[in-house]
């Protein structure tokens, strides 16, 4: 095979290699921030809390956002923690932000943390689970204002 053919093959192969790498980079670039949620899809989401929150945000930003987490039912009614200190640990342990005296609560039961302007509750592998509404959560779940989070016999919610 002639020298020139081999040279062209070598060059073509290097070009293929780089085209692959560059197209991978371009996919990453377009993927960097994800896609903006289409307006229609957002309206269609049956999320009352979210819709209310974004409306409030339009007038004065952050006015509708919760500021603290409070126990509304159970032995520790009234115990609260400021969200400014997030992430908040909830449990029976002494390092918890809200320390509950509830036999059905694990030492490190759940964590409440922020992502952007949304709040999440995450179960930390507790024995009895964490419930948002009536459903036991298996992954970090968004909670809005007034959504009841049940941990053992205690109910907590976000308040303004």
């Amino acid at each position, binding site marked *: *095979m002639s020298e020139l*053919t*081999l040279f062209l*093959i*070598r060059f073509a*192969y*290097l070009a*293929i*290699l*780089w085209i*692959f*790498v560059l*197209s*991978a980079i371009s*996919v*990453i670039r377009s*993927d960097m*921030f*994800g*896609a*903006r*949620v289409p307006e229609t899809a*957002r309206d269609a*989401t*049956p*999320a*009352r809390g*979210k819709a209310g929150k974004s409306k409030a945000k339009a007038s004065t930003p952050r006015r509708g956002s919760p500021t603290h987490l409070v126990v509304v039912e159970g032995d520790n009614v009234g115990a609260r923690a400021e969200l400014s200190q997030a992430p908040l640990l909830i449990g029976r342990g002494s390092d918890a932000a809200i320390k509950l005296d509830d*036999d*059905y*609560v*694990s030492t490190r039961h759940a964590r409440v*943390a*922020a*992502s*952007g302007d*949304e709040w*999440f509750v995450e179960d930390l*592998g507790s*024995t009895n*689970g964490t*419930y*948002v*509404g*009536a*459903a*036991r*959560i298996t*992954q*970090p*779940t*968004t*909670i*809005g204002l007034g*959504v*009841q989070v*049940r941990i*053992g*016999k205690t109910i907590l*919610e976000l308040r303004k």
Partner: protein
Amino acid sequence: MSEPGAPGFVHRPRRGAELFLLLAALVVGIGAYVAVGLGVQGTVPANIIGYSGWLAALTIAAHVAVRLVAPYADPVLLPLVAALNGLGLAVIHRLDLAYEAVDKPHSFAQQQLTWMTLGIVLFIVTIILLRDHRSLQRLTYTSGAAGIALLLLPFMPIVGNEINGARIWINVAGFSFQPGEVAKLLLVVAFSGYLVRHRDALALAGRRVLFIDLPRGRDLGPILAMFAVSMMILVAQNDLGSSLLFFGLFLVTLYVATERPGWLVVGGLLFAGGALAAYTFVGNVQNRFNFWLHPMDYYYESPGSGQLVEGMFGMGWGGLIGRGFGEGSPSSVPYANSDFIIAAIGEELGLTAVMAVILCYGLIVERALRIALISRDGFGKLLAVGLGSIVALQVFVVVGGVTGLIPLTGLTTPFLSYGGSSLVANWVIIALLIRISDQARRPIPRMTDLSGTFDSETTQVVKLT
């Protein structure tokens, strides 16, 4: 560890982009195979249809599995890995042809293809069986113990086997296998599970010395234990690379878990002390240092730096765009298909291709760190960082060693090198990353409108023990 995910954005599945990139990756792999055939034998290889069909079937099978069970997974990881694996296969095939020319026929490429098949099967099985990476958190201590046990396995009589002075192999039913490759995976799971639970103690307690928060003495237990394990690997197995990998891995995970530079200081000091001790007492380590500092002086000696120097000659001869497949003599480097595959690529495809390969690794690591950033649970974050740093450390140690940046240590180049254990383990690493990224990029389920329908009778509470 706050999430930077901008509100109002969601991740799209991007499976179409993945398919497109996978096709490009196939072109990279099959193109290399054809170029090898044209360059070395002068014709397109006879089995090209079967070969490319098989490669395409494997790749598409992996893609379909991802599409079905992990639809939101990262679109770039799988193509990057497929391209590296395909390129590796072609280069190993090229070396097989070179060995054949000097009447030492091998079928490394054939075996590597078998291992790749097994790797992809395990990849698919992993993403199908493991629907949520957090179930691995339950196996923290189990996998830690299993990892240590696997590391000790080569010392067992009967199964243990020593090859080239490194006691890292076991023989089971005629196959030799490096259990350390699987152990690194298990240890990452163990590190992440352990640290996500105990990071508060490790992160918060301590005192400040010269702008650096040093940890408390009593919290040094885990890092000292891991240091002891690494030193044991170094001294007993004579395996510098793995020792460095395990300790580096633990240090990275610890640093990421605690966000505390003090651990890096402690770890760096331990590492420096260990390296000094190894240099003084282990002859092999001393040799490696000498070969690194004065490669040319030991060229004719045995053990000498012949391999390293031949690799450098090869890369130097290859230059910017390489000699072209068939025009170099990469087979003059011993173990060109495992440790020195980067030198073989540098010789026949040049610096241009080596840069592309390193960029591919960079992108894999970038995706892993990105997955860690967007992951919503601490365990997933640490696991992704750990898995990414396995790849990063391995590539750094091998490519750094081959190019003479750091002393040469034996490790495989992920996905490129010939080596079944490593290839299979690395495919499982990618499967775990795909699983975590699917969890992380999936839109968040909304439960905000369920308040009020709350009923404590619907669920049963179990009293804590």
